[in-house]
């Protein structure tokens, strides 16, 4: 395969991954690394470097449209970013030290968990939880536009959420993904942040988190220009298109298809990792 063919095919695959990732809200990065390693036989470290770059592009590219809606909470985001960026830095340093087969196994486990999470019904919206003293001190409580005016919310269990965010950052740095699944666990489940607030806030955190590990990857020579170029451009174009048609599209069946894809890729990664084929 010549470089020209390779670039074209990777760009198309990345475009579809970005489109589906944005339509389903599951993120495109999570399928890119397994696709590149399993079908294009790219070394997993190059694949992670390229995916990480595309994660920044998706997050930053979508920020402007998310912000307009007024759901995201900049204080929650900034406070938790202390945890995610530290985690990302640690993850990136770990990634340069652990064997690629271990990377594949961890990746497979994260994929299986993401597939499971995408089939789970959303947690019930919080209603009038009492304010948590720590969250109040940190000014994390806020409000967002809801049917019939502003709805305020009180953030819960800050230390648990903060620790989970460190883990999300570490996974992001280790695997080159947005770690949306772990962020949802931290913000929805532990901190009881309303769904719309947590998804939009997590989108803006993903870019900053990925930037923290991207520096390390670039400095270590894991970001190959020839590979990152079609991945970044493809994912960016796909996710921008996805955010345009998101409102109209029927995403339920699409989510099912995409989560089956994630499940299959997860099993593949586990298989390859355990049999040392990566």
């Amino acid at each position, binding site marked *: 395969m010549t470089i020209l063919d390779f670039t074209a095919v990777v760009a198309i695959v990345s475009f579809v991954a970005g489109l589906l990732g944005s339509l389903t809200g599951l993120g495109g990065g999570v399928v890119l690394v397994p696709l590149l390693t399993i079908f294009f036989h790219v070394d997993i470290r190059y694949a992670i470097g390229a995916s990480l770059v595309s994660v920044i592009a998706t997050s930053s590219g979508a920020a402007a449209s998310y912000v307009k809606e007024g759901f995201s909470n900049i204080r929650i985001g900034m406070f938790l970013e*202390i945890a995610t960026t530290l985690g990302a830095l640690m993850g990136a340093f770990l990634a340069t030290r652990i064997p690629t087969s271990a990377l594949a196994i961890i990746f497979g486990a994260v994929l299986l968990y993401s597939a499971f999470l995408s089939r789970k019904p959303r947690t019930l919206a919080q209603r009038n939880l009492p304010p948590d003293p720590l969250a109040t001190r940190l000014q994390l409580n806020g409000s967002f536009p809801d049917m019939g005016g502003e709805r305020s919310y009180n953030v819960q269990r800050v230390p648990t959420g903060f620790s989970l965010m460190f883990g999300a950052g570490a996974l992001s740095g280790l695997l080159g993904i947005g770690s949306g699944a772990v962020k949802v666990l931290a913000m929805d489940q532990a901190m009881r942040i309303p769904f719309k607030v947590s998804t939009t806030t997590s989108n803006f955190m993903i870019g900053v988190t990925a930037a923290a590990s991207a520096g390390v990857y670039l400095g270590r020579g894991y970001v190959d220009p020839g590979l990152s170029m079609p991945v970044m451009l493809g994912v960016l174009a796909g996710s921008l298109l996805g955010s345009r048609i998101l409102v109209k599209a029927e995403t339920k069946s699409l989510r099912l298809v995409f989560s089956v894809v994630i499940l299959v890729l997860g099993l593949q990664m586990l298989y390859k990792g355990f049999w040392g084929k990566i």
Partner: protein
Amino acid sequence: MPAAQAPAPRPQLIQPQPQSWDDHRIEVILGNLLRGGVLLSAAVVLWGACIYLFRHGHEPADYRVFRGEPSEFRTIRGVIQSVKDGRGRGLIQLGLLLLIATPIARVGCSIVGFAIERDRMYVAFTLIVLAILLYSLLGSGLGV
């Protein structure tokens, strides 16, 4: 903290809203800044891609074996030098550096936003995040 503490007070009454209109305005500006940064970096990457594909498009592609990038593609100094030499891959890396810089610039601008609101605690938090990001970019082998 147990979620079922009765009677739960209505949060609106005791909780002033720290999410002010200023926060939202800052975010809108920053959102546009981010989008601009991404589009700029995508344009630079695309430009580099044209040069790279024109020159090397017919060579075989091989990413099976990890070699690591040469220093011209993994240090800021090397990237700038290869851009000066008119290399396509140097331009792609420059675009990727710009991309990594956009969220960092966003964090930097947030410091100004929090400072205008005289929120010292969040100025401090944001400075910590910025320090971690700059350490990653400059202190981890990428160098200048």
